[in-house]
């Protein structure tokens, strides 16, 4: 109903479920002695590491996600750093998915710790509020007593997510046409999902400083002046509770990045780590039955400069060898004083073009070899067979938490 001036008065049939401080809560669940203590989840056991999640006890002391552990430990001297444990988080993710799937066939996990249930066309025996409380109860019973979640119920995905963020932790809130303005009145612009510093500046430039002013803005201003695209119309509808975010995104890129463990590595050592990333990206690409057409390599330097280069090939590819060959060639032109490296395959499509095998014997041999290596690695464990070049890199580069995406879970 893009373009309507009224608020959406349809029943609230979208539910957003968000695990509270997910990784920290899961650690507190699995290690009972950590409960009621300030806990920070980190990806490495060093003082220089960044915090990827914090328990509510840590947040109460001022610890924030993204903060360096050393800085956080000054705020909270008793802060306990726990190294992230992805298999455990994947297990809880699957448990949450099972619970959500038992209420509707239309469930989409937005990330490892949040999911959306669409109740349209689902026969309901109880109200969504009752279902929300039941999900909280089941989470405690089926995962553990330390697990809590926020539930938001609304007519569209945007407002459901907003509702899920209103009363943390363990809240349950409903937003509909009757309380929409009241909710916006208590919020800042940057509290709205999707509005960060940059968009806030653009809204401020036309005199919009609060969510209520954003709601009052006319469609033409949003479309032609603020967003200068169809996004303006979408925001106009989204804010009023109309659905514009029910979209599925195809996999467009498959990539991996790594912050170097040491700032004094030689180019050769960095190149082996890049090779490791290429093997990892190749495996992920093939695990999804995809092929790619291009490789993109980037480098972030110690002085926070960003360098990147990419190359597209006429034929699709999927082997670690090809990805690495292209990436290493691109990397030859990279600057020195590297802090972070990344590689990404783009031009990704489904691997359904069996004509590839008609081109040459070499392609067929490569297909067979790569297939055999993947079978061995699946049977005996990740990186059982890999390049000799990356023999030592596994000690440093470990699989970490896949933020934002659930496609590798």
């Amino acid at each position, binding site marked *: 109903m893009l373009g309507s001036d009224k608020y959406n008065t349809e029943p609230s049939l979208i539910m957003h479920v968000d695990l509270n401080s997910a990784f920290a809560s*899961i650690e507190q*669940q*699995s*290690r*009972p*002695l*950590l409960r009621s*203590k300030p806990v920070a989840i980190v990806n490495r*056991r060093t*003082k220089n590491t960044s915090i990827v999640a914090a328990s509510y006890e840590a947040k109460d002391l001022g610890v924030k996600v993204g903060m360096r552990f050393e800085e956080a430990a000054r705020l909270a001297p*008793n802060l*306990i*750093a*726990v*190294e992230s444990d992805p*298999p*455990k988080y994947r*297990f*809880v993710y699957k448990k949450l998915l099972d619970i959500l799937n038992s209420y509707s066939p239309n469930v989409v996990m937005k990330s490892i710790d949040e999911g959306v249930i669409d109740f349209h066309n689902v026969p309901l025996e109880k109200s969504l509020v009752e279902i929300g409380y039941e999900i909280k109860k089941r989470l405690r*019973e*089926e*995962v*553990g007593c330390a697990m809590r979640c926020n539930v938001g119920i609304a007519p569209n995905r945007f407002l459901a997510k907003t509702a899920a963020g209103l009363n943390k932790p363990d809240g349950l809130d409903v937003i509909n046409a009757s309380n929409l303005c009241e909710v916006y009145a208590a919020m800042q612009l940057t509290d709205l999902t999707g509005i960060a510093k940059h968009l806030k500046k653009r809204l401020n430039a036309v005199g919009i400083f609060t969510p209520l002013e954003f709601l009052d803005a006319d469609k033409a201003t949003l479309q032609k002046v603020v967003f200068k695209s169809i996004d303006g119309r979408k925001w106009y509808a989204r804010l009023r509770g109309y659905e514009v975010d029910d979209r599925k995104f195809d996999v467009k890129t498959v990539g991996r990045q790594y912050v170097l463990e040491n700032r004094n590595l030689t180019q050769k050592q960095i190149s082996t780590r890049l090779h490791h990333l290429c093997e990892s990206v190749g495996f992920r690409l093939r695990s999804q039955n995809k092929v790619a057409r291009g490789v993109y390599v980037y480098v972030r330097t110690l002085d926070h400069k960003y360098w990147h280069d990419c190359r597209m090939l006429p034929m699709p590819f999927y082997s670690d060898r090809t990805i690495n060959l292209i990436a290493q060639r691109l990397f030859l032109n990279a600057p020195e004083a590297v802090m972070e490296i990344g590689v990404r395959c783009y031009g990704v499509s489904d691997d359904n073009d069996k004509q590839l095998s008609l081109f040459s014997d070499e392609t067929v041999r490569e297909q067979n070899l790569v297939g055999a290596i993947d079978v061995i*690695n*699946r*049977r*005996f*464990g990740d990186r*059982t067979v890999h390049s000799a070049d990356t023999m030592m890199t596994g000690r440093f580069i470990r699989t970490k938490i896949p933020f934002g995406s659930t496609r590798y879970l």
Partner: protein
Amino acid sequence: MDDETYLNERIRVVATFGEGLNLCRPLRFKRPNGREYEITEIGLRHPSMKGARMLHIFDVTDGSADFRLEFDAERLTWHLTREADHVG
């Protein structure tokens, strides 16, 4: 920093197999040094694959320390792999 110690000790375990959230419940275990521990709570049990081999990981506590016990479903062995006694 965390006080977790990484171990790889083969242990002897008394466990029950029944119903409920945790079908398998380790109740007590004995380390090679002879010390015995009574498990007071299973924090979380999750499966983990080592290649095609399934391990069941039990994060448990005896009230004074947290432990990680790993049950290898193929070899039917138990290992103590982590210990943390943080009491802040």
